[in-house]
């Protein structure tokens, strides 16, 4: 089963997303800031990460940078930003740092699910390709 890690400091937003993902048949993990998220990434190795930006302790940008620099083995895990920061600077910074996508809040759940399914499809191809060699 595909596991999705949802990182957001707003408990209500996190719960709504997790509910939606669970109903769509995904396994979910939850973290309320970048640091907790990193711990779960290391210990549970989820398939996809959905991550907020503005969070205490370690924000989304910091988490992505931390992964790229210190945990290269985790950098292949598709990382989708989901933030209420809609300014160009945040979007450009996030995508340039290696995020698979940058979605803004409020989010249409159908679009969120479509993005995730797209990631899952690509992951499947990668796995098939890995097996072929």
């Amino acid at each position, binding site marked *: 089963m595909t596991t999705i890690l949802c990182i957001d400091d707003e408990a209500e937003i996190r719960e709504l997303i997790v509910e939606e993902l669970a109903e769509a048949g995904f396994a979910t993990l939850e973290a309320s800031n970048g640091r907790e998220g990193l711990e779960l990434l290391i210990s549970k190795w989820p398939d996809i990460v959905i991550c907020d930006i503005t969070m205490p302790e370690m924000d989304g940008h910091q988490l992505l940078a931390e992964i790229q620099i210190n945990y290269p083995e985790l950098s292949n895990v598709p990382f989708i930003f989901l933030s209420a*920061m809609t300014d160009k600077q945040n979007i450009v910074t996030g995508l340039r740092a290696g995020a698979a996508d940058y979605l803004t809040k409020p989010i249409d759940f159908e679009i969120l699910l479509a993005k995730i399914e797209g990631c899952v499809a690509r992951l499947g191809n990668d796995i098939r390709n890995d097996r072929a060699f």
Partner: protein
Amino acid sequence: MTDERIWTVRRQDGLLDVALDNMPHGLCMFSAEKKLILCNLSYAQMYDLPVDLTAPGTALEAILDHRAGLGIGPLHTATYFDVVGEAAQKGGRASQNVILQDARVVRITHSSMKDGGYVATHEDITESVRNAEALLAHKQTLEATVTLRTREVEEQARELERLLLQERNINELQRQFVALASHEFRTPLAIIDGAAQRLLRAKGEMPSQFVREKAEQIRSSVLRIVDLMESILAASRMENGAIQIRYEQCPLKAMIETCCHRQSSISKSHRILLNIDSLPEYMEGDKLALEQVFSNLLSNAVKYAPGNPDIHVSGSAEGDVIRVVVQDNGVGIDADDVPKIFQRYFRARTSTGIPGTGIGLHLVKQIVELHQGLIEIESQKGKGTSLIVTLPIRQKTLLQSAELSNVA
């Protein structure tokens, strides 16, 4: 050349007398014994010499005594004789400007003669000296003015630069504010939208508990938006001086308790420890505005202390004032950010990752000051923050209007 010979020449040739008397400068010739040999009309006029003092054989001393008596002798006799001495030593010519007692300036040029006597010309250069002095003074004034103006212009340039920088900082803060405010609105909107989508997309019969939960989420998010809107509007009204503070009897204790309960119900992860027994039940103030102060301080305490659950709220009364302290053990503020913390839109470096718009504390300060109160902050990075509000129990304006109505 003997005295007799010169006088012979003079007598024989009236032309020489005419030439000498028409010289613009004074001319005199003295013998080695300092006796006058001859002088011209200009010399006599210059020093107001009576005829007998222009006669050949008159002692230099007699002329000088006469001049001293009229107040037109050389101001410094020593200088005067220096010229003579110098000329004699050199055996040639020496010039010096001599100031007279009446402030005239005379340029005296001495030419020594072989027999020890001398010829001297006296030129009144008062006017040109005065002109030069005036010119110099004018130049100095001009220079001083230029220096002053330059300094003024430099100061203005510096002030302009400072204002420009300030303006730029305000613009930057405003830009940040717009981004942050947008974020602050979008977050509850995302909850509302998410809850609504969950309701719409639910398949089959929805349990009433599920519907109730979503409806509650929607309502609490709407409240959050309304609060946010109110504080932004209040801040901008405050900025425009358009806010109306209406003083009334506020149930201070009950007000603080309500704010604490409301905050506790929103943030279950924190504990608010209340110690306000010594506060009076009532104080004069604008109830809505003061509620905004306390709820703002409480939500800040919770917001900036993730993982540090204890928030202390204590109150005391000292004479005519009350003091309320809201203390957290949170992220704290860098020492150099502390003085800026009440500036509109300013956010401390330690607030990175914690949502906010930078208007809360600015608004709080304005409200407190409108109540003739004081807000202070004590903070240590990594240790936590205390905000101390001091407010008068009675408002002066209220007392004044009460007194006025008594008079009427």
